[in-house]
């Protein structure tokens, strides 16, 4: 069972790693690349804590094989902030107390950014349905939805 060499671009940086074909992209991000911001809550695509964007598409990295990342661009929570400046979503999550334990937060931030990239003015219902695959057990989602809506408004006004 030999490992396969994978070259990809993660958060703008070229990376190389060796993946067992059975390892998920999440395993590779966490164990090979040390990017532990993406979390495993279920391993079955049901909780969204491992959400990343691959070639522009929001996916659960636990449902992607590491070897499939060959030649792809992957964006994780670690790439959300510019040097010295948080993404508006990150700021609004802190401001609105939209996290308690914080374990689901990386996945929800990545998913929310993917939403706002394609829909800068989502309704509450659109936010809720977009994030239905991101389980949070602490907050009851109220403050998360508010933070996403508020970040969207700020980003619209900044344009």
């Amino acid at each position, binding site marked *: 069972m030999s490992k396969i060499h994978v070259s990809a671009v993660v958060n703008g940086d070229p990376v190389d790693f060796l993946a067992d074909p059975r390892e998920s992209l999440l395993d590779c991000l966490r164990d090979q690349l040390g990017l532990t911001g993406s979390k495993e809550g279920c391993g079955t695509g049901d909780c969204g804590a491992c959400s990343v964007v691959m070639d522009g598409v929001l996916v659960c990295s636990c449902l992607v094989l590491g070897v499939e990342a060959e030649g792809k661009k992957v964006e994780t*929570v670690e790439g959300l902030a510019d040097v010295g400046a*948080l993404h508006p979503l990150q700021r609004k999550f802190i401001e609105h107390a939209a996290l308690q334990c914080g374990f689901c937060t990386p996945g929800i931030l990545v998913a929310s950014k993917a939403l706002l990239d394609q829909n800068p003015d989502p309704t509450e219902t659109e936010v809720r349905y977009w994030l239905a695959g991101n389980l949070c*057990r602490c907050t*009851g989602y109220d403050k998360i939805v508010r933070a996403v809506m508020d970040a969207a408004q700020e980003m619209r006004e900044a344009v």
Partner: protein
Amino acid sequence: MPKDELKSEFRLIGTRPDRPDGLDKVTGRARYGADMALPGMLFAAVVRSPHAHARILKIDASAALALDGVKAVVTRADFPTGLTGEDWNLQENSMAGDVALYDGHAVAAIAATSRLLAEDAAKLIKVDYEVLPHVIDVDDALRMDAPVIRAGAGDHTVPEGSPPNVSKYIEFGHGDLEAGFAAADLVREQTYKTEATHQGYIEPHACVAQLGADGKGEMWVCTQGQWYIRRMCSAVLGLEASQLRVTPSEIGGGFGGKTIIFMEPLALALSRKAGGRPVKLVMSRSDVLRATGPTASASMDVKLGMTKDGKLTAAHVNFRMQGGAFTGASPVGEALSCALACYDIPAVMHNGVEVLANRPKAAAYRAPGSPMAAFAVECLLDEMCHELGLDPLDVRLKNAVHEGVKASYGPTYAKIGLVEVLQAVKAHPNLLAKLGPNQGRGIASGFWFNHGGETSVSLAIGEDGTVTVSVGTPDVGGGRASIALMTAETLGIAYEAVRVNVVETGALGVNEPSHGSRATFASGKAAVEAARSAIREMCRRAAKEWGIDEEAVEWKDGAAMPAGPNAGKFPPMSIAEIAAKMGGTGGPISGHHETNADGVGASFGAHVVDVEVDPETGRTTILRYLVVQDAGRAIHPAYVEGQYQGGAVQGIGWALNEEYVYGANGRLQNAVFLDYRIPVASDLPMIDTVIVEVPNPGHPYGVRGVGETGITPPLPAVANAVAMATGVRLRSLPLSPPKVLAAIKAKGRA
């Protein structure tokens, strides 16, 4: 008490600053249980019983051990013998002995050089079982002829002649029950059932453990209580507690489920056997659902007497709970104590039994026992209000407990806030919303004691006058922010000048976990006392510097100053000035406080929910939701609201869809999030909150603790709303669509 008036007394308390761990958590830097790696680390996998009840005849690990890279296999034979009581329970639950007691019970564990290798090798461990008859349901387990899970498991409370699986019996009450029921105009008695649910924290249990032949060990683990992990692992493995150093990671949710050990001793045992190499053990979601600690399932009889104007005259509750295959794991005592705690009833009687079943060892889950009890009592209360044509909110107000009333569990209440909560409910605009067809509104009250507990806090003044606080209570929902606020308030310095760290077991005296809604109450109270002790020392140093008496110095706005005109005329000496000189004035300045925190104040709440039920499919939609709860005082109101909202939504899940589903073979059928259905974002509306503040006299800032009460009212509130929407009353949870539709159809036929 108007909130503005309260707020004006404080500089920081009641404000909503950014949480200190916020940046780490939004950037992915915060390190949780599975985020740790150590040099030379091995990876573990666990072999689990596929049977609900089976004798373990033989474990053959030779094929696994023959693989290159496999470093150790442990079974129960690697653990010490002769344990008793809860220590034995913990050991037996960590690793099965002669008999596997539930589907998912650990039987063997293996450590290898990679996760995939460990998992492959685990499949090569051959276990021979003799399958035994099993029992799952609480009422089935109580039968005289039920499969016996452990002969003689009952403790000293169990009366002779009880069914063989009864492990505990409880009885308490007061007043003349017969006279109470005789004085009632309406007496009703019903039976209610709730299914087991799981805390459902998103972070699976994870640890990295290292244990040498010299008995010295280290562990990195996601837990609510590092000292509990230390004590329990030491007991299970026969270690000296202080030789095991446990460091808590950031914790991805616990809700009570991370207050005890599950797989942690296995990682330590594997490390010891593998020559002391660190071992990482991370549970899968299925492992979490099958083999950690869900809550109990319950079967409950309630009998209430009420006059025609809505006064409760007598109450009798009789509860049966299973908390898995281990004595003392169910919260039946807590359930009974909470059942009638909201109401002033002249005569009450409580009976309860715990019974063993072939399920995992129940752990605490947010207000353990109280949600089930509330479901039974608050539903029957609601049924009787409707039968008598009384407003359910008015009836709750009429019977609400207050200071000076004798509690259903015995003592007389000190200052509490249920009446204020119910009045705030009455004033809320949600009650004016018009309901359409197939819609209903439900209300319910809820109660939790809250808890103080063993607490040790240290505070150190830095060289520049900033402050470090070391606490032993892991931060599950913003605790560091609230403790920093109280510390800064007490010291008269900026919130940002305080850093609160959750520290490892070597750094403080023994702390209980972050459980019982105690972190902000108890660690906060101790932090305030530690700050006061540091203030006394700083005043002493200022007094010496000025050459005046210590008593002539007071602390104000973050500085020492002469207490009055007679003390002398000196400019205030700020904390930064005192700190800068401390090397020459007697050395480091710190404050410390240790206590088993008294002065706990109970928290009452009431919820109102509007639902719509699809009469053709039985599916319930939550339209509106209101949480009102007494916080005592909200230190950081945003995180108080967060506790209210999170508790409410967990309760909604319990009411509507969450349940442990077992097959006829005793195996758990829904051990994935796909089928263990916790609420998702699109299931819910915004959760409205009102923070009532009836300060707790037992805490310097009036804190009561807010974490748990919020999960108590949703079960009955949702059930009451569904009953109003459909015209049919369901007395067993969850109110899943098949159950609701069947009830609607049965009514149509009747």
